[in-house]
């Protein structure tokens, strides 16, 4: 134990002394958070410039649609009198979209016939149009349904509308959207963290190969400490580093960027810690299979980057083709990200037994492979 600590301390000192690796270890994940903050944060701040052209006059329904739109997050609403003018402004890029409510629009809704006559002017495949549609369509459907019900029950439409508007305020939609952005930021940040964790783990395990190349490893073995003790202390240093990464990342994410992961901290930390073990064990396998530190570097890039890509660390997994998503099931990173996903959806940690077990199984399998391989590398020739 005393020996282990002694070597552990040296590993830590060496690691902390090389500021280049420190950059990778700690600043890396934090840059990752910043990056996802920029990507998703920006998207949230850009407002769509939308104009309403109300050709239907002082009708309550038309007014309701306009006020609904102005309440939607990220929409900057203006009013125009003329449909032609609106089209032109969309063409020239002064507006992102324009909503034309033709005369008779309100009547159509009240009579329960629907909103076919409504026109949404935008440039082809513009984000603004689809964004507005996501909000507007359900609302219009509700209005149509409202009209139908009013007709059937013979109640006053205006009255029903007033009731409906006060109940279903667009404010609730706003909150939901806000959270999902925070979650996206969290997931992306964790994706980057995973990437950095895996890289750091291999880097630290590669210390052992470098020590063989410098021959200090063999010199160590002539002292009372054993090869096993040495490896153990390296693994310990590795785990401590990854835990520090996780803690630093969570603290910075919450404290500095005010990103709410949508998951209680503890379950999140626990799954990440479990993954740390996976990362360290995998790094041991990589080291066990490489004879030189150059091989380690090559294997590191070859193994980590593609698997992280496939598992959805850098981009959302939904962007991937179906077949690739299938392959991802064999990657520990996917299981981690999926576990976090589910935690965000409100699943309790205790119900994620399958995920936790799978991660543990990955870790155990990697550990065993590395141990076996280490046991069969009895090559001391480099010492001569």
């Amino acid at each position: 134990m005393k020996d282990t600590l002694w070597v552990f301390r040296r590993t830590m000192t060496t690691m902390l002394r090389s500021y280049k690796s420190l950059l990778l270890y700690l600043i890396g994940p934090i840059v990752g958070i910043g990056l996802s903050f920029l990507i998703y944060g920006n998207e949230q701040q850009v407002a769509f410039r939308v104009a309403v052209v109300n050709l239907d006059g002082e009708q309550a329904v038309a007014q309701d649609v306009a006020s609904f739109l102005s309440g939607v997050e990220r929409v900057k609403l203006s009013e125009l009198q003329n449909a032609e003018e609106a089209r032109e402004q969309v063409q020239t890029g002064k507006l992102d979209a324009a909503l034309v409510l033709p005369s008779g629009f309100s009547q159509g809704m009240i009579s329960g016939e629907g909103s076919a006559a409504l026109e949404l002017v935008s440039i082809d495949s513009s984000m603004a149009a689809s964004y507005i549609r996501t909000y507007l369509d359900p609302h219009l459907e509700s209005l149509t349904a409202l009209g139908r019900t009013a007709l059937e029950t013979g109640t006053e439409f205006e009255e029903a509308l007033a009731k409906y508007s006060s109940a279903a305020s667009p404010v609730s939609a706003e909150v939901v959207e806000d959270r999902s952005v925070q979650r996206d930021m969290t997931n992306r940040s964790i994706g980057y963290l995973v990437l950095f964790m895996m890289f750091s783990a291999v880097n630290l395990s590669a210390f052992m190969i470098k020590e063989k190349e410098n021959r200090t490893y063999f010199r160590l073995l002539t002292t009372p400490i054993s090869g096993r003790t040495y490896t153990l202390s390296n693994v310990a240093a590795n785990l401590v580093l990854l835990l520090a990464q996780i803690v630093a990342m969570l603290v910075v994410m919450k404290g500095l960027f005010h990103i709410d992961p949508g998951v209680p901290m503890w379950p999140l930390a626990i799954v990440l810690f479990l993954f740390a073990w996976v990362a360290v064990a995998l790094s041991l396998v990589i080291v066990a299979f490489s004879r030189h530190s150059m091989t380690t570097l090559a294997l590191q890039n070859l193994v980590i980057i593609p698997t992280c890509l496939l598992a959805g660390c850098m981009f959302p997994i939904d962007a991937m083709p179906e077949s690739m998503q299938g392959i991802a099931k064999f990657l520990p990173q996917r299981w981690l990200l999926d576990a976090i996903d589910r935690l965000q959806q409100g699943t309790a940690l205790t119900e994620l037994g399958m995920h936790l077990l799978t991660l543990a199984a990955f870790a155990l399998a990697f550990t065993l492979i590395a141990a076996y391989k280490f046991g069969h590398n009895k090559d001391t020739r480099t010492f001569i």
Partner: protein
Amino acid sequence: MNNVLQLKQLTKTYGDFAAVDQLSLSIKEGEIFGFLGANGAGKSTTIHMIASLIPITKGEIEVLGKNIVKNRRFAKSNIGIVPQEIAIYEDMTAYENVRFFAGLYGLRGALLKSRTEEALAFVGLDDKHRSFPRDFSGGMKRRLNIACAIAHRPKLIIMDEPTVGIDPQSRNYILESVKKLNAMGSTVIYTSHYMEEVEEICTRIAIIDHGKIIAEGTQAQLKSIITDQKTIGIEVRTMEGLNLEKLSGIAGVRSVEANEERREIRVSSDAEVNNLNRILKELLADGMEIRAVEERQPSLETVFLTLTGRSLRDN
């Protein structure tokens, strides 16, 4: 005197090849034991087995009377190995290097500090505590390499060619420190390619070839093995006019060396051929002035060459 190290029928094979072949040897407390052997003779392999770095194929090793396989920790803590290839951390200072290795032998606190300082002073690096080995000369690295092996004051210090490729000043420093370590109570095993080093410091020597010991004893004992050869030292006034080739051509002569400094010509020759008159006549014919003629002991180099049939250094 007690045996510090005993090798019994020690063997190491790689496939069919025996790198060390039934090697038996006892080294007593207080000796500086020289291990002589050409490249690939099996010196390092033997040392690696003593250091528990590689498994023993056959035979036994005892350190301070205890079997090293059964008492690995005990054996390791009583040995300090100076590896043939420099093995130090470039990213730690000289002080940290020595301190780290000493700590692996269990030293802590004030004792660790004083021993670390002592070891660095011993190899003449006491003004380099805070320097990094990457800025060191080859000789300084070699000296640090030694310091890392002695801070825990081992009973047995094994040095595997500690003076390869270094400047004469560092070499002298190292030889002196070996003597000092020995005087302070450490037994030393010293392997080298440099005959003069071994001649200068070793109390006993083993010549090893193809994994076997082919001769063992004090320098005088080794030299007396060679009875079929005589060495004649001829002191002259000046070396001017010396014709080595002509001398080598004389019947029975095996080798001729000229030592400018001592103004001595050394002729090794078959013992039974009587050729002294011829040699002297040739020298006189070349106009050389002879001051003295003496029978000399053969050099260790000659002993080695005769026994192994090859020279100690092949470079």
